[in-house]
């Protein structure tokens, strides 16, 4: 439907429904269940320069209306992605977002370069390449003793500044809700020339096995997602929308078209669906149809009419 179309940094989305990184692979698996060409966009599984085996031990724990994950960025590495998965991506319509993680600034920069060069090469060949890089700054900063880049604004600034120099592709920064000051963080992204912010990533959280007297996760903490966090994520998106100009990809616990519309009314340009994919394999399709029905019902001609209205 034309009136659902959105644009961020010149990138066209057929509709505001984007699948969140790490929950949707690169889309192939879900294509068995519905036509993923209906989606506005897909943010692929988080990639790092080198392949990663991810964390050992338990990787998932269910919580009341949520789940914690400790996948630890298991991924095949950027080169393997460009060689193998990009060919599949060239065959599908949704906006293509590469989610980029890293341990050092050099890794991030080098990763961004590889993706950018590859896309320009593809475009010369009449192919499409990647639409947008989504920089995941929740990764641990090796130099700072493992504290994530996404906590302190000035530390995040360093990595964003360098990555911004390394790519001419549209660049979104995926913010962590564990940031000390999410508004300040978003304003900084704007200052550093990022094209959008994605928020929120998972909340740092914990589960203790009281019989074994230890964390269930080998890593200690893990990331909380799902409906449980929606009220907090929505508040953060609203706060950022009120205090910064930068376009927002909003997410965190969205599990219905009503939830999605709330994020848009709070100011998100597009929304992302993560954990809800696990609750409903046809989540994307269902949420798009729900937003469409709401627009019909309320006679909304363009999402611009309601975006940021609250």
């Amino acid at each position, binding site marked *: 439907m034309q009136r659902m179309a959105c644009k961020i940094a010149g990138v066209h989305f057929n509709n505001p429904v984007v699948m969140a990184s790490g929950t949707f692979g690169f889309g192939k698996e*879900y294509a068995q269940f519905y036509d993923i060409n209906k989606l506005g966009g897909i943010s692929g*599984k988080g990639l790092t320069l080198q392949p990663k*085996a991810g964390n050992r031990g338990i*990787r998932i724990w*269910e919580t009341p209306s949520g*789940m914690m994950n400790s996948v630890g960025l298991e991924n095949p590495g950027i080169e393997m992605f460009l060689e193998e998965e990009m060919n599949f991506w060239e065959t599908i319509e949704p906006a293509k977002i590469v989610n980029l993680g890293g341990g050092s600034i050099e890794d991030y920069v080098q990763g961004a370069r590889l993706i950018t060069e590859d896309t320009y090469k593809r475009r010369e060949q009449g192919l499409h390449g990647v639409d947008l890089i989504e920089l995941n700054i929740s990764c641990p900063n090796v130099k700072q003793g493992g504290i994530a880049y996404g906590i302190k604004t000035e530390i995040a600034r360093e990595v964003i500044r360098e990555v911004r120099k390394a790519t001419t592709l549209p660049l979104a920064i995926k913010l962590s809700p564990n940031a000390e000051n999410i508004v300040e963080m978003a304003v900084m992204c704007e200052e550093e020339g990022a094209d959008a912010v994605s928020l929120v990533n998972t909340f740092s959280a914990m589960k203790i096995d009281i019989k074994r007297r230890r964390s269930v996760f080998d890593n200690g903490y893990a990331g909380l997602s799902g*409906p449980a966090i929606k009220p907090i994520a929505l508040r953060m998106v609203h706060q950022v929308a009120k205090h910064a100009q930068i376009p927002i990809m909003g997410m965190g616990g969205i599990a219905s078209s009503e939830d999605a519309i709330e994020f848009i009314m709070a100011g998100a340009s597009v929304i992302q669906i993560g954990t809800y994919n696990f*609750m409903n*394999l046809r989540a994307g399709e269902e949420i798009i149809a729900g937003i469409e029905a709401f627009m019909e019902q309320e006679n909304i001609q363009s999402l611009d009419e309601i975006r940021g209205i609250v």
Partner: protein
Amino acid sequence: MSIIISNEEIAKDIYLMTIEGEYQGKMGQFYMLRSWNRYPVLSRPISIHNIDNGSIQFLYKVFGEGTRMFAELKSGDSIGLEGPFGNGFPEPEGKVAMVGGGIGIAPFYFAAKHIPEADVYLGFGQEAYLVDEFKQVARQVVTNVGRSIIEDIEPDQYDMVYVCGPHGMMHAVADKAKHSSAKVYVSLEKRMACGIGACLVCSVICHEGNKRACVDGPVFLAEEVNFDAENGL
């Protein structure tokens, strides 16, 4: 959503659920079940226990919140299921033994129907169940209550051994068969989210790197699994 035909407690905390409909699936594959809308968040992976014309059956043990909710379902209630997922047990080549420990016997009823000439070993903790049903489909059924079923099986006598049960039991059978010619296949239990290979929460540490329990498994050739690093759930 599908309709439940029956859901009976056949032994303490062990339920057999029969659901109406035409279903696909191979031995060792599983479905993701949810009888709720929003809570809990995740669906539960349960092996195919049996498929007949017009129905599918699951055999499950009440363990936590989700299986407790399954146990409350009555005939006529509805339940959502997606599947079949996973690779399932390989087709037989030569003589097959199936070794089920506890609720790990669940997939072998369907498997025994498919390979009636296989020998079936069923190990129970306290109370045996469904033994007569297994006897109707399998050539030979060995049961064992209270002791370890591992003692009963001689891997040398088989070409393939399918195992499903507690992680330690699967590891032990694999060890016992190490110097035999039998190929051991284990059905690993891992917590799952998507069930279809997209989220990587179910990775199994194999000698060649990680594999996904939900699509590359749940059945693995025991020798590919790095049992020193992989400790199940």
